[in-house]
């Protein structure tokens, strides 16, 4: 026996208390639903696989100050030294670091005629030698890697070859294989595609073309005073790697600064820091809102029990069992929460639409308002159960004894 009707009509007759709680619940549900959706979206972004052996790759910069130095030659020599270090799997100099927030972006077109040629979407443009695939730890799923003798020292030279990431290949060529296609950089520079990499992310975690990447067969080092390197090593070798790199390169030539040591995993972490902060803040907000709502509920139940002591005693005198009293308070608050929850869920959808319009968020999935509603009912049960159980213990004698 739930006796919903008299509880409802009693609620509708009572003054502002339930109404305020209702408004609080509506707002909480609307905010919590959207916040948890955003949290989930961000977490999904943050957990995307880069395709790269992030943990194993240590990146750093070398600044050469000696003007008489043959930079290109030094760069080649440095790469040899790095590869010879104990525990090192592979090493490359590079023009950009994945997930670092900085790098090159380019496009290719499919013909020499500017008027008719179709352009690829923008992609992260990596330059590296035949070691690069190994250093990044990416997987070639079609075609082949560069051979050592195919490596050029500038993307402006002839004989440029390219490996493209599979998402880029699918975006531009669809099901057709890109291997063997000749593309153009500008009108005259030809680029031949020789392989497809399963997955390789670019530098900008928030860019919508984040999954589109190309590696060209260019050993990019010694172009200026500053060179970037990536060294991939096994987990056992990583801890001492920084020191042994500095020692080995200084032994070769002490006249330079070697710093900016960071694993790609660390680059990833700092690139996603804003997302992480957002997730933390929103999660705290969700917890706080649910907490405030449950406190509000518990507070109102306790207040109502206090206020209705005589009424509860009278109900008991008239034949209410303890569980009738408990279910009274549970039903009363479920009614408020259900009404607030449903209105809140509707408001959540409206709010989601606005967020979608003005902040280009994806469309709110309906499961979030529903989950929030379920969570709210759980919170309600916990907040109401214990005060209601105390109410059930009110003695029927209070019907005659209380004032």
């Amino acid at each position, binding site marked *: 026996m739930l006796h919903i009707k*008299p509880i409802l009509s009693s609620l509708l007759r*009572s003054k502002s208390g339930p109404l305020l709680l209702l408004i609080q619940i509506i707002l909480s549900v609307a905010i919590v639903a959207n916040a948890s959706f955003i949290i989930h979206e961000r977490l999904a972004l943050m957990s995307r696989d880069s395709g790269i052996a992030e943990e194993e790759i240590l990146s750093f910069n070398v600044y050469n100050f000696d003007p008489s130095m043959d930079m290109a030659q030094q760069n080649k020599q440095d790469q040899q030294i790095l590869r010879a270090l104990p525990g090192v799997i592979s090493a490359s100099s590079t023009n950009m670091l994945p997930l670092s927030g900085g790098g090159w972006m380019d496009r290719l077109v499919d013909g020499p005629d500017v008027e008719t040629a179709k352009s690829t979407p923008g992609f992260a443009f990596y330059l590296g030698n035949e070691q690069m695939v190994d250093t990044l730890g990416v997987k070639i799923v079609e075609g082949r890697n560069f051979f050592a003798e195919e490596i050029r020292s500038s993307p402006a030279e002839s004989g440029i070859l390219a490996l493209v990431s599979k998402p880029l290949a699918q975006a531009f060529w669809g099901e057709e294989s890109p291997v063997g296609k000749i593309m153009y950089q500008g009108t005259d520079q030809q680029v031949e595609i020789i392989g497809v990499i399963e997955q390789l992310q670019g530098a900008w975690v928030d860019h919508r073309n984040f999954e589109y990447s190309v590696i060209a067969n260019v050993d990019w080092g010694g172009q200026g005073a500053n060179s970037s390197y990536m060294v991939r090593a096994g987990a056992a070798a990583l801890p001492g790697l920084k020191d042994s790199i500095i020692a080995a390169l200084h032994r070769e030539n002490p006249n330079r600064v070697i710093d900016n040591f960071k694993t790609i995993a660390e680059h990833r972490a700092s690139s996603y820091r804003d997302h992480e902060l957002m997730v933390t803040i929103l999660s705290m907000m969700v917890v706080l809102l649910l907490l405030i709502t449950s406190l509000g509920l518990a507070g109102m139940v306790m207040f109502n029990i206090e206020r209705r002591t005589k009424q509860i005693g009278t109900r*008991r*005198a*008239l*034949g209410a069992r303890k569980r009738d009293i408990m279910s009274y308070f549970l039903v009363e608050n479920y009614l408020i929460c259900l009404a607030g929850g449903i209105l809140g869920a509707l408001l959540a959808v409206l709010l989601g639409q606005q967020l979608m319009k003005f902040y280009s968020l994806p469309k709110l999935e309906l499961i979030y308002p529903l989950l929030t509603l379920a969570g709210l009912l759980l919170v309600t049960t916990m907040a109401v159960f214990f005060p209601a159980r105390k109410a059930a213990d009110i003695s029927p*004698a209070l019907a005659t*004894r209380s004032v």
Partner: protein
Amino acid sequence: MLSMRNISKVFKTDLVETHALRDFNLEVNEGEFVAVTGPSGSGKTTFLNIAGMLEGFTHGEYLLDGVDVSNLSDNKSAAVRNEKIGFIFQGFNLIPDLNLAENVEVPLRYRGIKAAERRRRVEQALEQVGLGARMKHLPTQLSGGQQQRVAIARALAGEPRFLLADEPTGNLDSLMARQVMELLEKINQAGTTIVMVTHDPELARRAQRNIQIVDGQVCDFAASGLGQQQGLRQDQELTPLADLAADFAAKAKASA
């Protein structure tokens, strides 16, 4: 109908033990209308609460309708209250957020009676107390006398065999009190046993039997229905009223 033997009730607080009832004996027969009077604090409400199973007692035996109800579970007591007993309170105890019909319906809902039957009984009960036209009104829209009549309707709707009233006219002026009393007499004539606590000697006189509770004991021998067994000294029976009063005063002093 109601039989209490050697009931005692002790309230224990941190500081004091109050003997609200001591060696309390009473028989009430089916169909009787009993008025209970006595000084303030003498234990009238305590007696009524025990009779109505609103609270337990410390010692003794209580048979309601021939059934020992002293050790019933909480749920069973609630069911007995709901089915056999009707309550009328000094403060009416209507539920302010419910209209008259909903108020009268409360005990019927706890009994699990179906909606149509509930409606029939609610209408009938409110009709009986002369408020059939005001079903949708809220208690605050009524005078005190009308509110008490609603409370009586609520007690009647469950068709109890036993009606307990704790100063039902205590908050009413004498005209309204008389109306309520007439209503109770009518109900009694229809067969319901009534025990009513009152401070009003005029109303008490209209009942079939008067009981006085003093210091937690039934003290009017003539009214107790148990005669000698009830623990009064034999000679008290013959004591003139004035001496009796002096005796009570002394007792009261001793217990204060």
